[in-house]
């Protein structure tokens, strides 16, 4: 069955920007993390016929007895890129892991569009990220949701490495959000470099579901990797619980260290908290770092 957002997702999505503005951390930082699209005063110049009379500075005229026109400089909004890991380890279509990724992607996109930031959603591929949609207006939210619903079943192996082919960020800057479980060995250090290059910045959203954190494998069984189809005979799943938990913690720390080493933000997200809380937290952390 094709993926569909829940009926209450869209109304919650529309209320998200207000939540972000009220979000934790630094409101300016949170808002500033996705700021853009404003017009700021730059200088005065003498009035010439043809100028828009609305730009006349009447205070200046009273002081200087001279007609002056205000000049403004447009502050270009940063580009927001949301990269989705669609490898098989991201869960079957409709699973909680796949759902949380789509909800977070939709939430981040809408918050960005509400802040007048252009948004592009990409999926990882072997030759590089592939853009599946780009928008500039928050009125396009339904197109965003349709695109996210139309994404196919996560399949294949992780192509995070393709992110190194990401084009350089524009002068206005770029914030790249990567939603992945980063289950790739070794971790793609070169990707981190590409994400933080130039005026770009990045935020890694490390997706780990509650079931991945607490797997229930009480007996001897055979595990298969959904990406490579390799099999692993586990003599006793319950006996491996501690070692598994340690491996998971080590993996999370490794991702966080790698991100920090390249000036990126790494945030752990799961399927327990509602997507609003996760996004507010991510943007608060991103804003604080910004």
């Amino acid at each position: 069955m094709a993926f569909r957002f829940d009926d209450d997702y869209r109304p919650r999505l529309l209320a998200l920007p207000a939540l972000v503005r009220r979000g934790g951390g630094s409101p300016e930082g949170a808002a500033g993390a996705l700021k853009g699209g404003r017009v700021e005063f730059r200088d005065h110049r003498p009035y010439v016929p043809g100028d828009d009379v609305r730009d006349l500075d009447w205070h200046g005229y009273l002081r200087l007895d001279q007609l002056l026109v205000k000049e403004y400089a447009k502050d270009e909004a940063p580009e927001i890129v949301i990269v989705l890991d669609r490898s098989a380890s991201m869960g079957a279509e409709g699973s909680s892991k796949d759902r949380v990724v789509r909800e977070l992607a939709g939430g981040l996109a809408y918050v960005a569009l509400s802040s007048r930031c252009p948004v592009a959603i990409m999926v990882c591929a072997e030759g590089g990220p592939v853009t599946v949609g780009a928008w500039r207006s928050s009125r396009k939210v339904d197109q965003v949701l349709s695109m996210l619903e139309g994404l196919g079943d996560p399949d294949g192996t992780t192509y995070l490495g393709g992110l190194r082919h990401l084009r350089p960020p524009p002068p206005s800057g770029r914030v790249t959000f990567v939603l992945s479980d980063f289950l790739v060995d070794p971790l793609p250090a070169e990707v981190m470099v590409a994400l933080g290059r130039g005026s770009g910045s990045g935020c890694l959203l490390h997706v780990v579901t509650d079931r991945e954190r607490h797997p229930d494998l009480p007996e001897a069984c055979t595990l298969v990797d959904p990406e490579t189809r390799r099999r692993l005979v586990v003599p006793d799943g319950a006996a491996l619980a501690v070692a598994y938990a340690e491996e998971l913690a080590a993996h999370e720390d490794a991702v966080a260290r790698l991100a920090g080493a390249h000036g990126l933000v790494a945030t752990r997200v799961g399927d327990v908290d509602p997507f609003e809380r996760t996004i507010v937290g991510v943007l608060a952390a991103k804003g604080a770092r910004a």
Partner: protein
Amino acid sequence: MTFLRPEALLVLPALVALLLWARHRARRRPRPVTTWMLFARALERMPDVPTRRRPILRDLLRVLPAALVVVALARPTVKDREPHEVVVLLDASPSMETGGPDASRSIAARKAAEAMVSGRVRVVQVDGDLVGPAVDHLAEGQPVIVATDRPLDLPPGVGYVGVPGKEPNAGITSCGVGDDGRLLVRVAGVNLSGAVTVSVVGPPGIDPVTLAATELPWRRVFDLPADGFDRVTVRVEAAGDANPLDDVVVLSRSAGTLTAGFPARGYDALWRAFDAHPRVAVFRGDGPCDLRVGAGAGRARLRVFADLGSDPRPVAGTLVCQGTSLTGQLSLEGVHVAEPGSSWLARVGDADLVVRGPDGGLVLLQDPDRSSWPDHPSFPLLCAQMLTWLGLEGRSVLAPEGAVVLELEETVGPFLDAEIRQRPAVDREVEERAPLDPWVYGLAALLLVVFEVSAARARRP
């Protein structure tokens, strides 16, 4: 505990086999896990983890609700430990009231049935089929006794109290002289095994006739000489004959005509055949029986119809018989329509029962074979009373309107002895009326709920 559908339990081994197969399949079936990489790393660090299989007890517990449903489908029941209740199906037909209110066949039969068992007794009055209800009780495992005066063929296990039995009897059912001067004799018998001898004494030249019991019923017309005798005595003799009252008919000559006379009680052969002997089969005769009764000017004919053709008319009314009101209503079927000019002598309700025909003959309109009349004592008594109503003996008993009252005569013999013919099976197991399967279903449902709740709590983070 016993099971009404034990074949359903055959599903249990299949359930266990299915469980074992599912466990084996679950172990071998590869499970996709998204964090396979982390499991591989963990196993690399701990290569000596021994193999462990899930305890089968836990799986058996999971299968337990399904197993309980299978057990419930097998309809478990618990053996009844209460004392057996014996059902006595007491024949409620009117003939069972014979003997009067204080000592009837019904009372004698009930006492005999109750004496057969030691537990609780429940008496059920049944007017009609007794075999069917007895079979039903037997099928349900409930001890049952049938008490009746009818001969029945009951299956083994059903108790049978009879009141009374039939003893051998031979009797004269018809005896009279026709208009041609010839003597008609009819003889019938029941439960006879030996020879029957019919003798005609009086007229010269008539030898006794010896018959085999299988030749009955028997009929012969004898030629009588015109004179030379004043009395004809017809006698029937048979070994083991239990009723002597229907064995002799005396015809005496009067005014040139031979008419039937009566022995000490003044009844003719037909009445004697019906006489209430305790163990005598009742003869109806083999057709319309034309009797000439009485002597002198009071002569009258009694016609009894055994077959009234195709126009029966049921009659219902209250009848007092032998001083006892018959329970319910008397059903008289096959009632003949009286000839125009008849005057009624006895009626039931507004239907004539006995009339004096236009020729002076006495006509009984009812077919005794098609009524619920207690046949053994009452019909012959009715016949006797009808003769009395003719005024032959100076007594006239007229009933109150709407009822016929018959006086209890000593002709009602001692027929109150009940006979135990078959004992009921009272040692069979009686299964509990409320089977256990509802409880088992409930337990299965409860276990399902408990498992679901525990599983939900285990899944909760």
